[in-house]
């Protein structure tokens, strides 16, 4: 059993956690944190809660041994819990993450958020306020993984499963420079990477469409499109190196974002929310989309580097993110599908 501190990106064994018992504190008039091992009852109580050895009816508060912030006792990590939301700059990662959490609170999705861990919702709302108040997305600063860390506890609506998920919303530039980032300056980011158990790779649908048009017309590709393609290959290569070094398979969901740009064309209307297309059909459709836009090299790199691998097409806003962006106008499409797939939740629920 490992507990997640999302501020430090540490997966704590009980031996590295601290604990406090309110009863002990009240009796001694000393507020102190002790090692969990010294504080916890030898056997967990019937509910599985961590309780005090001296006061068996008192649940323990658990704290990270590094930052001393409280660690929710239900923040128990699963194999795929830590998700890397990866992608080039402006590929729509932050918007996808925000809308995803909103979708996971709606009744139409089979999995819902049971609780937010720490200040995740507050932080995400703040990030999105920036987007909405400025009328459109803003670049994400290239900070270390000490801010924009989000974690939620999920549960199936029918009670058949529960998961903890955690993301760090890193800037596209960081993913581009993955091979050369300073460990000193990005210490927590490296810790986060070590914990990653599943990957969602965001590919900008706008650039995909531009690729298709360029090929169709026989034009010269724009520098921005060429840069995006080169960056994606670089990101995938670096990620693949890190994953291979771990020696364990990590599920990857390749996700074409801003699918609303694409589905306006009849041949790609299957990406619409209400198209009725199955997961397999979407997977085949996205692979074909990538080929037609000239991303054969990316496709080959992905298929040779990762398994299991599945393709998705999503739209966070359901429309172009032009100002003024109003929450009431948003119509997200299929945004939860990549997450449920990489967590294995879709199989549990099937």
């Amino acid at each position, binding site marked *: 059993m490992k507990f997640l501190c999302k501020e430090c990106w540490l997966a704590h064994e009980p031996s590295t956690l601290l604990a406090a018992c309110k009863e002990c504190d009240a009796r001694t*008039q000393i507020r102190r944190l002790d090692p969990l091992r010294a504080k916890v009852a030898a056997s967990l109580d019937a509910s599985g809660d961590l309780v005090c050895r001296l006061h068996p009816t008192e649940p323990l508060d658990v704290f990270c041994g590094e930052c*001393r912030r409280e660690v929710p006792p239900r923040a128990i990590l699963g194999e795929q819990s830590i998700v890397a939301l990866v992608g080039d700059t402006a590929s729509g990662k932050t918007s996808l993450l925000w809308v995803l959490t909103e979708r996971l609170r709606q009744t139409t999705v089979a999995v819902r958020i049971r609780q937010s861990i720490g200040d995740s919702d507050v932080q995400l709302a703040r990030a999105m306020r920036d987007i909405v108040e400025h009328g459109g997305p803003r*670049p994400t*600063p*290239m*900070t270390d993984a000490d*801010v924009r860390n989000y974690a939620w506890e999920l549960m199936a609506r029918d009670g058949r499963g529960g998961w903890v998920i955690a993301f760090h919303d890193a800037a596209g530039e960081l993913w581009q420079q993955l091979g050369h980032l300073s460990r000193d300056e990005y210490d927590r980011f490296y810790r986060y990477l070590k914990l990653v158990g599943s990957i969602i790779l965001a590919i900008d649908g706008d650039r995909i469409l531009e690729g298709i048009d360029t090929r169709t017309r026989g034009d010269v590709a724009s520098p*921005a499109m060429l840069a995006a393609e080169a960056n994606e290959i670089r990101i995938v290569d670096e990620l693949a190196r890190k994953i291979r070094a771990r020696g364990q398979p990590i599920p990857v969901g390749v996700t074409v974002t801003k699918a609303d740009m694409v589905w306006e064309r009849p041949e790609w209307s299957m990406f619409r929310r209400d198209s009725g297309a199955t997961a397999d059909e979407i997977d085949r459709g996205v692979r074909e989309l990538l080929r037609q836009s000239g991303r054969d090299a990316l496709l080959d790199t992905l298929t040779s580097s990762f398994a299991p691998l599945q393709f998705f097409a999503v739209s966070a806003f359901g429309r172009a993110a032009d100002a003024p962006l109003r929450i009431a106008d948003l119509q997200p499409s299929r945004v939860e599908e990549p997450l449920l797939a990489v967590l294995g939740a879709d199989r549990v629920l099937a």
Partner: protein
Amino acid sequence: MNTEIYHCVFTHATDGWSGSGGRFVAVERNAPELPTDAEIELKAFLGKLMPESAAPAWSMRRFAAGADRYACVIASYNGFADAGNRAGVLNHARVVRLERDSIWFDPFPLVALAEDFDIESVKQLDPLDRLQAYLDRIAEEDAVEVRALSRQELITLPRELLREVLTGTLAARADNRGHRRVRAPRGRLAHIARAWAALPVGLQRQSTWAYGAQDGVPVQLIWTGDAERINVDSPSDAVIDCVANYMALLDSSYDLRTLVNDEEINLAPFSSLVQVAAATVASLPETNAMSKKAQKPESRPRPTAGFELEDDAAVELNRQYDRILAAVKEYVDQRLDAYDAGGAGKPAVRPAQSAAVAGVTWKQWLDRNAIPIITALIAGVLLTLGVLFWMGRIGGGTAVRHRPAASVRTETREAAVIPESATETADERPVASPQLRKLIEAAARTGKWKEAFLTFTESEPETVARMIDDTISAPTADANTRASLADLRDRVRGSGNKLDSSDREALRKYLLQYVVSREATADDGVVVDENVSDLTPPLMKAIKSQTNATSSSDKPEDFELQSEVILRWLEMNPS
């Protein structure tokens, strides 16, 4: 003196060619001369800064690269859209190299230059032209005045602003969470920067700050205009007192040069030094020349000829004499050893001076001259003490009491708070507290040192807490050690005699390590340097024998001995 400005610019702004995302752009007087580590750090910093609102964000930081010292002010402007039409930023660092004589520098001209930059005129241009226009403008900025900060300039700052900035900065430095968001003070950014620069260089370097920035920028303090996001907990009383004392010192005529130029000083020693110095200032009205309440110095009776030394001065004289004698003997022994070693294996290498006394060996020469040398040195010391006594410095109670150095570093720090009128030879010891003296006397009679030690931790928790603070701020302490020490300190402060046996055990070990570290030479960490130590030989022997006991021995007799070591050391080093 005008100093060249180096520039480093990070931006998302589109130039019509690059893709989306941030990048560094080449500018005239780029900052290429920075060593690699400093450049990586600066560039990483630039990528992390983003305004929290439509107004620009700012940051001020100092850094060292090898022997060079730098300071920079960073501006972060909104309004530079990227290729994906996202609302990006332009972050611009103006970097200056600081000369040796101005490392405690006045940032006002540099920050004012950045603050007065007309960014609005750039933002009015077409988005595609903004970056180039900005670069063209800053190409004209080639130099700025960089000079040492004058205390006169600090006096012109509004008191409340100075207090607010110093309090915010030191509170952030003391915050275990790593950073604080504090409501921004009202005033020009350049004034805020100048107020921050009033701190010693070492503390400035440890307390980088930003103004109006989003979280994630690696600073200790963010001044913010967003009332919803400020830290509500107020600074500790210790910080408030420290700031009050420091402001009093800044207003006085104290010679603070060594203190403010100290590049290594941490919060705990700074706080202790300021407290001691402020108390001294309060007791020395004649040094408060710049204070409005400065009083005319009282006339002191001048010693008459044939004066008698007071007891303390006599003891001091004896001590100085013993030291000089030991130093000369040691020097002679060393030279003789070197001479003998040379004669044994190879032709002796004689000192150049020996040519002048042909036919006389070095040993013979020393035998003949040792006594005159020693006599001359003693006469020099006597003369110095006599002059000082005549000036009313010894025995008159006006000299700052400070211990002779147990290490060079300690001496440097304490010298920092000596008033300009005092001299290095005013070398009286500070006095241990009456409780401590009583405890030691009682323990010496009964042999119950452990009991005395526990009583001491209960009766003088603040002294113990300060020692722990000092250990926490040591650069060698890792995060876990710091955390457990901080926990222990809080309990010492807050709980008095409620420490349990394991806490007391940990406390004893930490304090013993503290004593050992204070008495040890820098290199070996365990060998007491007898040449500079004030400790008595038995005590030094005890420390040596107990150095390893902190980790290996738990025998009751060692508890007693370790407790004695700590208490006796504290008696001699109460400051």
